[in-house]
C-alpha cells in the first residue's frame, strides 16, 4: 500500500503504460494460498481465499496451490486434503516439529524458501494476526510488494498482474493497487470478506514436500504457554446468520436495549459501529467494519447507522440489509436492500413485534 494514496490523486497511473515484465520474473507461475491453522483446525479464511485463488488461477490459466506448514502428522496432512476439496490442484507441504506453534522465524524461513524454490506469481494470506505477522516478514525478506486487507482481487489481463482493491483512509474511497515488476505479488484478505466455497470431497491433488532445515537452537523465541480463549463468552459475529446492529443514531446507551430486544426475538447477534464501541455501549468484539469484524449474514438490520465506508466494508456482503435512518440522504441507503426513513426508537419496537408475530405463526405452521 503506497503513500501515494495520501496525495490528492495518484501520480503514476500504472494501467495505461505498456508494461513489460522483467524476463527474470517470467518463471514465476501459479497462485498460492497459505493455509493457516491453529490447534488442529484450519482457519476458514484459508478456504475463502482458496475460492478466490481458484478464480485468479483460472483467469491466468495456471495451477492453484495450498501451502501447509506444521508439525509432522496426519493432522497436518489432512489440511492438504481439505485444500484439495476447496479447489487446490497441489499442496506444498512442510512438516517439522519446530512448526508445531506459530513462530515468526521458522515460518518466515519456511515460506520464503518455498517461494524461492517454486516461484509463485501470486501469494495470498489471511489478514489475521498470524497472516499479517508472516506476510509482512516474508514480503520484506523477498523484497516484494504486499497489499493488505484487500476487499477485492482481480487480474489485470493487460499485464497479467494482480489488481488488489482495498478501502483507503478516511474518506469514502477505494483504491486498486498493483505490484508490477516484483514477484510474487502478495496480498492479505480479512476473514469473511470472501465467500466460503462449497468443498468437493471428491477432488484430489498432488503433494510436494519440502524440508525446513532449521534446528531449535537457531530459533530465538520460545513458546512458554498457549492460553486458549474461552469461546463461550465471546460473541461470534463473523458466522452469525442474522445481525441487528446499532450506531450513534441510537443516541443513548439505554436505547440500545431496543437493538437487544429485536436480536433476542430473531435469535440474532448484536453488532455496532465504532463510535458505539468507543463510547463503551457494547464490547469491542461486536464492532463491524474495517477495524472490527467482517460479517456475511443472511439478514443485517442497521439502525441509526450512517453507512460510512469503514462500516460498509464489514457488512456489504450481507444477503439482505434493512436500514433504519432518519436522514433520507444517509449513505447506507446506497447499499441497503430495504430502507426505512424514520426514527429508530419507534420503528425498532414495531419491527420486534412484527417479527414476533410472524415467528409465532411460523411455529404454528411447523
Amino acid at each position, binding site marked *: *500500500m503506497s503513500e501515494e494514496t495520501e496525495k490528492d490523486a495518484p501520480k503514476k497511473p500504472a494501467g495505461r503504460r505498456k508494461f513489460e515484465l522483467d524476463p527474470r520474473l517470467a518463471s514465476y507461475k501459479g497462485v498460492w494460498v497459505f493455509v493457516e491453522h491453529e490447534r488442529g483446525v484450519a482457519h476458514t479464511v484459508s478456504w475463502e481465499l482458496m475460492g478466490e485463488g481458484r478464480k485468479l488461477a483460472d483467469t491466468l490459466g495456471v495451477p492453484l496451490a495450498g501451502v501447509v506448514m506444521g508439525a509432522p502428522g496426519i493432522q497436518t496432512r489432512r489440511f492438504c486434503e481439505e485444500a484439495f476439496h476447496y479447489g487446490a490442484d497441489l499442496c506444498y507441504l512442510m512438516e517439522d516439529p519446530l512448526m508445531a506453534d506459530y513462530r515468526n522465524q521458522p515460518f518466515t524461513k519456511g515460506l520464503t524458501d518455498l517461494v524461492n524454490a517454486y516461484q509463485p506469481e501470486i501469494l495470498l494470506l489471511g489478514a489475521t494476526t498470524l497472516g499479517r505477522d508472516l506476510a509482512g516478514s516474508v514480503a520484506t525478506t523477498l523484497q516484494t510488494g*504486499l497489499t493488505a486487507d484487500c476487499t477485492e482481487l482481480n487480474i489485470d489481463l493487460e499485464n497479467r498482474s494482480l489488481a488488489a482493491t482495498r478501502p483507503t483512509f478516511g474518506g*469514502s474511497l477505494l483504491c486498486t493497487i*498493483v505490484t508490477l515488476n516484483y514477484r510474487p505479488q502478495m496480498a492479505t484478505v480479512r476473514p469473511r470478506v470472501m465467500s466460503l466455497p462449497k468443498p468437493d470431497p471428491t477432488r484430489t491433488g498432488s503433494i510436494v514436500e519440502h524440508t525446513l532445515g532449521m534446528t531449535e537452537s537457531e530459533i530465538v523465541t520460545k513458546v512458554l504457554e498457549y492460553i486458549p480463549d474461552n469461546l463461550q463468552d465471546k460473541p461470534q459475529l463473523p458466522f452469525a446468520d442474522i445481525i441487528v446492529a446499532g450506531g450513534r443514531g441510537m443516541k443513548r446507551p439505554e436505547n440500545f436495549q431496543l437493538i437487544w430486544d429485536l436480536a433476542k426475538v430473531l435469535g440474532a447477534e448484536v453488532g455496532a459501529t465504532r463510535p458505539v464501541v468507543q463510547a463503551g455501549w457494547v464490547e469491542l468484539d461486536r464492532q463491524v467494519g474495517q477495524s472490527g469484524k467482517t460479517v456475511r449474514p443472511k439478514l443485517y438490520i442497521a439502525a441509526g447507522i450512517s453507512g460510512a465506508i469503514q462500516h460498509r466494508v464489514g457488512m456489504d456482503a450481507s444477503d439482505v440489509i434493512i436500514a433504519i435512518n432518519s436522514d433520507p440522504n444517509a449513505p447506507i441507503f446506497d447499499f441497503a436492500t430495504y430502507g426505512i426513513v424514520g426514527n429508530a426508537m419507534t420503528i425498532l419496537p414495531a419491527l420486534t413485534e*412484527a*417479527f414476533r408475530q410472524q415467528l409465532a405463526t411460523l411455529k404454528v405452521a411447523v
Partner: protein
Amino acid sequence: MHIVVCIKQVPDSAQIRVHPVTNTIMRQGVPAIVNPYDLFSLEAALRLKDEYGGRVTVLSMGPPQAEAALRKAISFGADDAILVTDRAFAGSDTLATSFALASAIQKIHEDMPVDIVFAGKQTIDGDTAQVGPGIAKRMDLQLLTYVSSITDLDLENREITLHRRAEGGVQVLKTRLPCLITMLEGTNEMRFATLPNIFRAARYPLKLWDKDAAGITDVSKIGLKGSPTIVSKVFAPQPKTIPAEIIDCESKQPKDLAVTLLAKMFTRFPNLHEDIAKANA
C-alpha cells in the same frame, strides 16, 4: 536500556471528506494527529522506562510538519526525537518506509545501542501493519506483533517475556533482546502530559535528518523507486445496482410499516423464513 518508538503523523481520518465531483481527498483543514495505535506502543515504552530506567527515543519519517507529532511524544515523556525528512522519500510504500526507518534506527543504534524497538500495530492511513515486521526483518530483530502485555524484562540476561494475541488464544512468549514489539490496541492508556514535559517539548531541539544523516546511500530503495506497489486507481464505492426499496414513514404508523416490510421481504426472500427459524432454534 534504550528504546526506540516509531510514530507516524496521520490526518485525523474521521474528519476527512471526499470531493463529491473529483473524488479526491480534501485535506484542507484536517488536523494531523499521532497515529492512535502508536500511542499504545509509546505508553508501553514509557512504562518500561519507568520501571527499568533508560531512554526513550521517538522516530518518525515524514514531512517537516510531522515534528508536531514528535513534540507531542516528548510532552508525554519521551527523551529524544528524530524526524527523518527528505523529498527523496516521497511516494514510499511500506517496503521503502521500513528500509528508511531501519537505516535510521541503525544510525541511532551506533550512537547508543538499542534494546527494544516499538512500532504501532498499524496506521490509520496506510493501515498495512507491515512497517513493523519490515523493520524487524531488515534489522534481524525478534518480531513480536499484537502484544497485549509485557510480563517480564530481564536486562541482565537480555530476555523478555510477553503475551501475544493469536487468533484463538494468547501465546506466552519468551525471547531475547533486541526485539521489535507492536502493541495491541486498548492494552494501556496514554498518560497525561506533565507541565514540565510540555515546556520541554516546546523548547526541545528536534533532530532533523535527511537521507544522508539517516545513513541511506542506496536511493533505489526509497521513494517511488523503492516501492513495489503502485496505486493504479482511486474511486468511490458504487451504490448497489439494485437500489434500496425505500419504505417511507410519513404516511404510515410504525406498526403498519413493519408489517408491510416483513410481507415484502418474505415474499422476495422466502428462504429468510427458514434462516430465522434456524437462528431461533
